[in-house]
Structures are given as C-alpha cells and as structure tokens.
C-alpha cells in the first residue's frame, strides 16, 4: 500500500461524501490475497477507511462507471482517466456524473512476473516499500525492485498522470515509465506472415474463453458482444482454434483507435495470456496512420475509425 496516497485519497473521499458532491467513491480495497487489490465502492465515510492505493490496483475503474446513474467519484490515473474520456466521447458515461480524483500512477505490478521471480512458490504476503516489493512465502522472503516486475504496459506508458480530473491528489509525477511503446509492437513487424501466425497461436493457445479480458475492458460495453450473438451466430462456442482466435482477432480490431493500453485485459486473464501483443501493434498503426492520434486525450475527439470522410485514404482497396 502507498500510505501517503492512501491517506490523501481517503481525505478527499470523505470530504466529497460529507459535502454530498457524490453518492459514492470508486477506488480499491485491499485484496484478501496478495498482489490483487479489489475495485471497491465506498458509500459512507466509514467505508472510505477501506480505500487504498497501491501497485496492485490493476483493473480499469472506468469499466465500473458504465450504466451507473448515480454520481461517482473515481480514482483515476492516466489510463483510467483516458478511458473515462473515451467513454464520455462514446456517450457511455455522463461527464456531470463523474467526479475524477486524478492521480499519478507509479506503474502497477504484473503478478505473473512476481510469481515467476519466486519460481511459482505460493506467495503469502506482498508489501511495497518505496520502489521495492517484498514478497513473503513459506521459507522465503524476496525483495524485488518494482521496476523489474511492472506490467509491460506500465513500463511503456507515456501518460501516467490523469489527463482529465476535477481535482488532483498529490503531486504530478513522471509521465513515462521509461519503455518504448513502439518497440513493443516491433517484434511482429520483423516476422514473416507464417511466423506471425505461429507467434499468434502460441500467444492464445491457453485461452479458456472465460472472457475476463473482454469483461475487464472499458471498451467492451456492447449490449451484445459478437461472440454472444446467435441470430446470426458469428462465432462458434468451442475450443477449436478458429473459434478462439476469431474472438481475439475481432475483439482487438474492435478496440482499434480506442485502446488506451491500460492492461486490464492482461491483468484479468487467469491464464496469463499477453493479448496486448495484438492491441499494441494496432495502436501503433493508428498513431502512425492518423497523425499521432492517441485515444482518450481530449473531450470531443472522435476515434479515427469511427468516422468516414470522403477523402479518406483508400490505397489499400485493390480496384
């Protein structure tokens, strides 16, 4: 837990509830198991004492704003605030219904990386002290520099501070995690078509189609997802490659130009599948093809693939 941040978040949350500016505050509570802190709605000042901020807050809280009709204060670092902007732009969230408590993200921890560090041994406790994570299990205690176990998307993040907020909690920090997000996509580009397919199937072979990735994603708010549609049925329900891969490919394309790379999909996946290998490449293409467009940076912006202009480039269409 990041003690100082937690204190400031709790103060702001209590004030907002007391002044009746909001009906509830959406943040995180400490998880019942290590490395997984849980999204949490605090409705009373008493419940605010459960709110925390840590490096284990790996979901995207914007996801929980969709369809709510009450006034919610939400703790939002860069990616979450960008998702909120996106949802406002796509008419899924009303600006006047959210009070954004902007924060700076220190980068969140990839629990699979931590598990790897301790060789898969059971972790009984995880603490953070400064830039280190201390992981404790039966007969071992390991001190790990946080940077070595950050989620990949946090390493390549370039907007760690909230971009839209009603008040900012604490000081603003470094915008970037230091990694190069264009490099993440680069491995695909060097591969031949066959190698890409091989890498793709390798990435998704363990998928059990629980849809945790889809359901953790603030972009996946469709009333009826294409994999659930039955009239007509676009996608089979089996574990056959064609069905599994169709889901992942189509979902990735559906998010093109809208994905803020929050990493909630990967953090939610119980199998540890790194589905960002698809979305990061797609977002890179969007940046390159649409004058550096980044989703969620500006209220009123229109996602490039959601508009049609008569003079859109069409070289890719073979006559």
């Amino acid at each position: 837990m990041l003690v100082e941040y937690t204190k400031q978040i709790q103060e702001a949350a209590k004030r907002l509830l007391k002044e009746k500016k909001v009906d509830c505050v959406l943040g995180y509570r400490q998880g019942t198991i290590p490395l997984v802190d849980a999204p949490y709605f605090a409705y009373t000042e008493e419940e605010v004492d459960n709110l925390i901020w840590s490096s284990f807050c790996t979901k995207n809280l914007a996801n929980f704003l969709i369809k709510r009709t009450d006034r919610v204060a939400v703790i939002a670092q860069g990616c979450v605030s960008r998702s909120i902007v996106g949802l406002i732009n796509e008419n899924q969230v009303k600006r006047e219904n959210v009070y954004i408590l902007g924060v700076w993200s220190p980068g969140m921890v990839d629990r699979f990386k931590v598990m790897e560090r301790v060789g898969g041994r059971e972790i009984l406790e995880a603490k953070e002290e400064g830039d280190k994570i201390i992981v404790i299990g039966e007969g071992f205690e390991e001190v790990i520099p946080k940077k070595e176990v950050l989620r990949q998307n946090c390493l390549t993040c370039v907007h760690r501070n909230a971009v839209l907020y009603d008040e900012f909690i604490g000081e603003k920090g470094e915008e970037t995690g230091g990694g190069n997000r264009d490099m993440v996509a680069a491995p695909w580009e060097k591969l031949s078509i066959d190698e890409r397919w091989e890498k793709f199937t390798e990435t998704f072979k363990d998928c059990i189609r629980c849809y945790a990735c889809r359901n953790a994603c603030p972009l996946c708010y469709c009333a009826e997802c294409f994999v659930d549609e039955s009239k007509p049925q676009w996608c089979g329900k089996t574990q056959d490659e064609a069905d599994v891969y169709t889901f992942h490919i189509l979902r990735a394309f559906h998010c093109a130009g809208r994905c803020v790379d929050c990493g909630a999909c990967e953090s939610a996946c119980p199998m540890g599948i790194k589905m960002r290998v698809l979305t990061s490449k797609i977002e890179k293409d969007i940046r390159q093809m649409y004058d550096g467009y980044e989703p969620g940076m500006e209220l009123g912006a229109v996602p490039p693939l959601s508009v049609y202009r008569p003079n859109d480039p069409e070289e890719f269409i073979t006559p």
Partner: protein
Amino acid sequence: MGYKCLAKDKFSELVEKFTKEQDVFAPIAQGLEVKWSLIDDPSKILFDFKNTSMSPKGLFFPQTECLFEFNNNKDAEDAFILKETSPLVKKRTLLNIRPCDARAFSILDKVFMKDEDSLDVYWKDKRDKTILIGLACTNPCSTCFCTQVNSSPFGEDGLDVLMIDLGDKVVLKDVTDKGEEILKGLEDASDEDIKKVEELKKEAESKINANLSMDNILSREVLEVYEDPFWDRLYETCLNCGACTFYCPTCHCFDIQDETKGDYGRRVRNWDTCMSWLFTQHASGHNPRGTKKHRVRQRFMHKFKYMPIKLDGDIGCVGCGRCIQVCPVNIDVRDVIKNMNK
C-alpha cells in the same frame, strides 16, 4: 483393506504397470503452472506441488465435447443418422489427484449419474474407465478451506487409492475394491509409517484455518438468503467473466450447439457459465436472470443452498480455493460464505 507401502524409487515401476495398458494422467510442471498431462515419462510426475492450476474436470467433462456427428445431405445413405462418438478405448488412471478434486467427481456423479433416466453416458463412460489414485495434501494453500465444506486434505471420497508422501516412500491406502486390486502384492506399511500418516493428517488439517461455518446457510430459508441485502454490494464489482466457473471443479453447466459445415454436422457441448447473461436468455427475449446481481447470486446460491437441498446435503464446493486465486476482482468465496451464513 489397510495401509501399504512403496519406496519412491519403485514408484516408476508401479506407474509403468499402468502405462502399458492405460493412459496415465498426472500433474506435471509446465512453466510456472502445474497442469494435468498425459504421462509418458513417470519421472515427470510431481509430488511436491500445491494443486494443479485447473482442476481435472476437463478429463471427464471436456470444455468442448462432440456428442455425435451426422450427415446433412438428404440424398446420402446415412442422411440424418446420428453417428455416436466412440467411447474411451483405453482405460485411464489419474495419479496424484488431490482429495478435493476427487471429491468433486463424487459430487458431480450425483448430477451426471443421478438415475437411469438422466444418465450422462459421456461422463459415465469416462468415470467407469478411470482409476483415481489420490495424493494427500500435506501442505495446503492459504486459500484452501476443504475442511469447512465436508472435505479434507486426506479425504478419500471419490478415490480408489489414497497415497501419502513420506519423502523416500509413499503409503497407500485402498479405498475401493479397484484400489485393493491395484495394491495387491505391495508390502504392508509399518506401524511407524501409519503413525506418521496420522501426524501428517492432523498437521495438514490444522493448517486450514478459514474458520467458516455452513450451519446457518443450510438452516436458513432459501428466500431469506436470496433476499439478503449483502448481494447488493457483492455483485457491484463482478465482471461477470467465467473464470471462477471454469476453474471450479464442481461447476458443470454446459451449452449445446449444432455445427454444420457443408454436409457434415456435429453436436457439441461446451462449458457454459451462469455468469453470462446469455446463459439464461430465452428465445422470447425475456431473461429470468437479467441483471449481474441475479447472476452472481445464482452461482453461490446454487453451490451452497440449492445443491445441498437437492443432493442430500452435499455442498457444491470442495474448498479448493481456485476461484479465490483467479477472480480478477478478488470476490472471495470465503467472504460470501460468511455473509450467507449470518
């Protein structure tokens, strides 16, 4: 009946006895995970592990299972005649299955093989042809709570043989006649070994301190639990993904699909999840579990209230704790039980 003993270095010989005529499955390490796998090399079989990432239910109830095939060409000789999926050719043995996962099978037997009229032939075929040799849990996970749901780290329910790892040797206890047959010829365990087993059992059970009770859940009126206000908070952060249901050794709901390609057709059943809105969507457009709250409540009510009523008190949970480990938003079944047990 009784305890037998086998030196660890002789264990491979026992396994090879099976592998000659059977398919042997056991937990092996794959990267960070422990997975169920077909064994070709007995030395790969793990003894020192907590539990497999996913339960072995897929070996009896595969995530995708073809029920039968058909030819859709009306002019063909075999037009519209169902072709049965062939039953298992080889017998199978599951080695080192944890007692919680074996117990799940005996609970599911009551669902899939309740009576002649509702017999699931696909489940029965695999159950009848599979021997379960369990490995007692001497070091349960922090998320385990089997002792609170009628199970135990040394539980025998569902097993043919229970093995206890004593380091350089294993002690084996036959549970069924099939088990007795397997252990024939092995030497008896010494009193000292049996004493050690008892000690390990006590120690393992004492490590599980979830401190849960089911008494009130079982005695409370169904509607009282159903209408408890705590559900109003529990569902809020649920993603309605299917991770808990797919990892759960006792979740057993499925969806049936007919698929065709050209003249070829097949009927497949796939794991389904009550977390999905589609699970209960009617053709009329009505959905009896139309909200997330309905769906989250259903899963826990089914396990801890409806199943005990229908299955002579058997709870639809074996306390393996997998759902706690995989839930992306940390909905902890232990907290749910505490709330239901008010």
